[in-house]
């Protein structure tokens, strides 16, 4: 695992979708810079050229500034291009193209004030029955422990997933609105209590990062972070096995 480097621009990107987003952000910013510099240069020129001084008078007749029309049309066209060729396809892919065929890792993410909880289906690959009535301080995932499907489920406070394999996460919140944010994965998704929202993502390199909450959720909002550990498939499997082994101990 390599130490991530954070700087003053975009954080490192480890997600397969992130490249599209980064390209888009960069393209838009170059476009913005071009517009701003153009405007600015014109403005500064005017300020110098048309400053008030003896012998200089303003011109009443409006200038024919055909270029302004072209500028506006240009901005509109640029926006249309960004919309049609970047924004819509990229977002549609992120939002709709769930990789259900590619052997995804499926997890549940439960947000509460003020920690994350990650729920893995365990060896049987099936999530146990969960329900509001089972939520307790010692059962944060709301698992029905009498349900055998749920008995081998793993519930942990840090997010682990393997590199190169898509992850489908089902997001729910217990109490208020939270937002699941992984800057290095270019993912933000609100968790709305009473709703289950699925998202997917796939990492392209390993590393140890952080998950944060991006929606004000109360006084501990700032403390609502969790480890984000992207591992090689072998390490991931090893971690899963360890968790399973740990579960056996606790059936007392």
């Amino acid at each position, binding site marked *: 695992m390599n130490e991530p480097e954070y700087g003053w621009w975009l954080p490192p990107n480890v997600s397969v979708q992130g490249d599209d987003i980064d390209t888009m952000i960069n393209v838009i910013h170059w476009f913005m810079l071009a517009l701003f510099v153009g405007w600015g240069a014109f403005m500064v020129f005017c300020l110098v050229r*048309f*400053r008030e001084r003896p012998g200089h008078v*303003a*011109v009443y007749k409006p200038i024919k500034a055909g270029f302004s029309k072209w500028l506006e049309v240009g901005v509109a066209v640029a926006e249309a291009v960004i919309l049609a060729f970047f924004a819509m396809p990229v977002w549609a892919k992120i939002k709709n193209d769930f990789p259900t065929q590619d052997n995804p890792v499926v997890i549940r993410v439960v947000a509460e004030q003020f920690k994350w909880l990650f729920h893995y289906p365990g060896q049987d690959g099936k999530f146990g029955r969960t329900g509001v009535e089972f939520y307790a301080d010692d059962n944060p995932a709301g698992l029905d422990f009498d349900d055998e499907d749920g008995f081998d489920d793993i519930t942990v406070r840090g997010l682990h997933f393997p590199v190169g394999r898509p992850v489908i996460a089902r997001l729910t919140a217990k109490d208020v609105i939270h937002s699941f944010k992984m800057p290095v994965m270019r993912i*933000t998704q609100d968790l709305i209590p*009473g709703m289950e929202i699925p998202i997917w993502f796939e990492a392209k390199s390993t590393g140890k990062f952080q998950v944060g909450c991006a929606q*004000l959720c109360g006084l501990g909002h700032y403390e609502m972070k969790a480890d984000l550990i992207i591992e090689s498939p072998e390490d991931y499997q090893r971690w899963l096995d360890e968790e399973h082994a740990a579960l056996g101990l606790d059936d007392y």
Partner: protein
Amino acid sequence: MSDEHSDLGFLRKYVFSTDHKTIGIQYGITALVFLFFGFSLMMMMRWQLAYPGSAIPIIGGLLPDTLVDRGAMLPDFYNQLGAMHGTIMVFMGIVPLAVGAFGNYVVPLQIGAPDMAFPRLNMMSYQAFVIGGIVMLASFFLPGGAASSGWTSYAPLAVTATTGQTFWLIGMIFLIASSLLGALNFIVTILHIRAEGLTFFRLPFFVWSQLVTAFLLLLAFPPLQAAAIFQLMDRLAGTSFFLPSGLVVGGEQIVAAGGGSPLLWQHLFWFLAHPEVYVLILPGMGIIAEVIANNTRKPLWGYRPMVYSLLVLGFLSFGVWAHHMYMTGMGTTMSTFFQITTMIISIPSVIILTCLVISLWGASIRFSVAMLFALAFLPMFGIGGLTGLPLGLAAPDAHLHDTYYVIGHFHYVVAPGTIFAMFAGIYYWYPKATGRTLNVTLGKVHFWLSFIFMNGVFMPMMFEGMAGVSRRLFDPTIYDHGAAVHGLTVMTSWSAWCLAAAQIPFIINFFWSMRKTERAEENPWQATTLEWATPTPPPHGNFTETPVVYRGPYEYSVPGADRDFSPQYVKQEA
């Protein structure tokens, strides 16, 4: 007329006045006080952000230990400050200043009206504003402190919050009532009480901007009113409009029937709050247009396209709100719709900005203090507008949503944008209201320091946001990417404190100039619009003789005229 008014007692003349000018000044002073207060809240937050966990100098020792621990801020206090900073700045600072103060003082003068259409309603509007403001501020003294769920008050967090939230909602209902009454008054006044000859396309751009703003306030605020009533019911009567079934707070199921929708609040809130953004900026643009036309000594370039853009802007602002909600799990059909409307709405803003910039061509630019602020407005609002682009698109928003980038973006619109416009307005119309001009040297000091430090505050936020630092974090350094940009945070904080210091010349100037013996000329800026046709300061009833309008609003440097300005109200032989 005027002598009768001067016979009135102190209370009727200054406190319960129905004169639009007095009300405008009341609004102005109150709003400036609130702005200053909201700004102070932010300065305390900046200390925590720059030096997390260390005691706030001086102030920290004065605060009760429910808010601070040995002088260092506690997270719930930080959240209170954040929520109240937003609320105070938006609803109790800028809107009352831009609409209540400038609108009230200038609009009737610019359209040649003796007063607003409903003077008593105008007074009630101000009173409702004051009551709302007091309720909001009083909430700081509650046991649980003020509202702490952000200025957006998202449910269910706000529903389960402390009593401060109830005060927030009640305060909002008063503020909304105030805005509604004011808006209605403005529309009727502008439609009905224009001077003879003042047709719609002879209206100064400022009046147009106020007209559109008034429509936005009138039609966008009621849904928030409805939402506030719902949330009040949720908090006080135990209903669950915004609470879904089976909420578990603090490990225990909360006692509520359930069946509500947390997103409903967001829809109703942003249905207001997006038009509200235009409420914040349009009057500012109006002031800037006035100042630029006056100081370039030529007509505005593209007056009509600007007016049309204004109308389109106002109309479209009702159809873009859900771009604040891309990350709530909205389907792609709807997000596509909102991305398209958001891109469309950027076009009229571009048109207005371009027209203002092109107006500089062929001008004879006077660098008065008001003009400096107006000129600074253009690039600053430009940055604010441009940075809205990536936020308006769902995919980049997936990274930038609720980061400091958003904060930088909207502050560039409202702080160096609207606030600079407000300063421009104050420097421009101060002679009208007081009969004295503000000192130019102090003004320029104020401008340059403000300009530098405004950018020092908000430019670093863009980079912090790019790095992925979320907003509303009590201590962003606990995240690795937050710690990496901590230097920028410190820079922002110091800029903010310097920005505060930069306002001292303004405050001195404001009060000191009022006492100057030397009176300003009747029309110190050689302006063309109607407000300069009245005596200074204008008496009760405004105009000594009923004005008649003969030409458009910005007839400067008319070829063949004997002066470089041809006022609207002077019948000149061509």
